[in-house]
């Protein structure tokens, strides 16, 4: 009975993840090497059920060759990295003072402030992105206010631009940055900062030499939590971005649903996964200190 229970506890989630999480990647990898004509679903009927994958081995590197030759994919990968990187920096710049202020608040206030940061994270991501659409649109709040104040005469193009994408990512991922920073800053021993100040350190020097290095684990965790998902972001670039706001998540989605080229999408996904492996391993390294201690 005990052994059965132990086996069940381990095997049930293990098998589930093997079948529904790991095996699918193997299939993606396999299909990325197959011929579009063999593996594509039939083209014309949009709602067909006879889509099938031919598993006769038909190895080709055509998808990857095409991926290398076509600028669209390179631009998408590069732009995703760039947008994710800059958004992460912006997130950090806004979150750090906030997390610091939260961590220094009176104990009774801390829980309320924390709750107010977590709450938007629970409400629909899609709808929070949508909320910005009506603020940024041509006859939206910003343009109308600026025009009625006489600051501008023509509405600015704010929606469907890269600016809107940055704004959307920073807004949506802010809680992911604030929470690890807060957790870290809250645990910091104030004595260090006070000692440094007592020894004559000016506030900025104390911050640079004491507070900042001590909060580095929080900075790293928060940055990775923003950077990694932002690279593959689909909803934000497709709702707020313009036609040239090519991010790889969106390119992949359109490759799949627009062109219905499954092997090509699989190749795009494989490369995206390769790009993400390094930051994900760094993340895992910082996320599991217990595992490391045990090992």
């Amino acid at each position, binding site marked *: 009975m005990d052994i059965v229970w132990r086996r069940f506890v381990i095997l049930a989630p293990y098998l589930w993840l093997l079948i529904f999480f790991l095996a699918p990647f193997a299939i993606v990898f396999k299909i990325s090497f197959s011929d579009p004509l063999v593996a594509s679903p039939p083209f014309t009927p949009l709602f067909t059920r006879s889509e099938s994958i031919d598993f006769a081995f038909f190895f080709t590197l055509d998808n990857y060759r095409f991926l290398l030759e076509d600028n669209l994919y390179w631009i998408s990968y590069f732009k995703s990295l760039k947008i994710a990187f800059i958004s992460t920096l912006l997130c950090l710049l806004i979150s750090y003072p906030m997390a610091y202020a939260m961590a220094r608040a009176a104990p009774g206030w801390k829980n309320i402030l924390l709750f107010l940061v977590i709450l938007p994270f629970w409400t629909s991501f899609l709808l929070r992105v949508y909320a910005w*659409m*009506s603020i940024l649109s041509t006859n939206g709040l910003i343009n109308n206010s600026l025009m009625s104040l006489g600051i501008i005469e023509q509405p600015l193009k704010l929606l469907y631009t890269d600016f809107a994408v940055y704004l959307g990512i920073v807004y949506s991922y802010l809680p992911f940055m604030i929470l690890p920073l807060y957790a870290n800053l809250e645990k910091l021993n104030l004595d260090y900062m006070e000692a440094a100040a007592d020894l004559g350190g000016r506030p900025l020097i104390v911050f640079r030499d004491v507070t900042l290095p001590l909060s580095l684990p929080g900075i790293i965790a928060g940055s990775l939590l923003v950077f990694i998902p932002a690279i593959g972001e689909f*909803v934000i670039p497709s709702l707020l971005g313009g036609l040239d706001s090519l991010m790889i998540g969106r390119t992949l989605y359109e490759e799949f649903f627009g062109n219905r080229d499954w092997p090509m999408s699989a190749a795009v996904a494989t490369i995206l996964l390769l790009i993400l492996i390094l930051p994900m391993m760094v993340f895992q390294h910082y996320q599991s200190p217990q595992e490391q201690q045990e090992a």
Partner: protein
Amino acid sequence: MKKAYPGFLISVLCFGYAFLYVPIVLLIVNSFNDSRIVSVWGGFSFRWYANLFENQQIIDAALLSLRIAFISATFATLMGTLAGLALTRMGRFKGRVLFTGMIAAPLAMPEVITGLSLLLLFVSLQDFIGWPANRGAMTITIGHITFSMAYVAVIVQSRLSSMDQSLEEAAMDLGGRPFRVTLDITLPLIAPAMLSGWLLAFTLSLDDLVIASFVSGPGSSTLPMWIFSKIRLGVTPDINALASIIILIVSIGVGVAGWLILKQEKQRRTESQLKLSE
């Protein structure tokens, strides 16, 4: 040496929370705007709400989403709790490193990749064993269980590893079989973590657009899929009303749950303090 809270930090907090909340508040205010144009106030009106309840498509999509969210959150909590137990209470086992990797990876995996890979899995399974015969609520549910069980596992795992194990050890020493000890001692202790896990899984499922779009079949549109197809073309007042309702329900739900968990935590703390002082 207690210093006053600096005014600079107060303004930082005001700015930060304004940034987080102003867009949501504006959305809710706008949902009562009679005018079609977003930033022109045309008077107070419930007409967009009335429109909403007349639209059978929205109601069907909402019901489908709620059904999927309920089933997938329940299964994800079950699987995630088992995974949390496996990682903290079962010692070493073969393939543990792979297991921890598979728990952590879904948290960071872009949804487009998870969605695409699951769809290709379902299509190939259908080819080989004829299951699933068609895609829809069932395949979406499986997809949601897979990514949200990882979140539950992380929550449960952190609760389990920060928990004092002496109660469980005492029960084992007194001859309790592992299965009974887990059921009678461990589970009640981690119930709040399981509840937060369930809630998180529920909202994640309710909110998911990308994975559902990949693995769903003809005729089964979830609420986010329906919303996305609408707002892709621009702002529509109906969606403002729908968004306000969803945001309100979620906020109340999360607020009540957070309050209950906090209260229980406080109660447990005072109880253990009482026991110590006796």
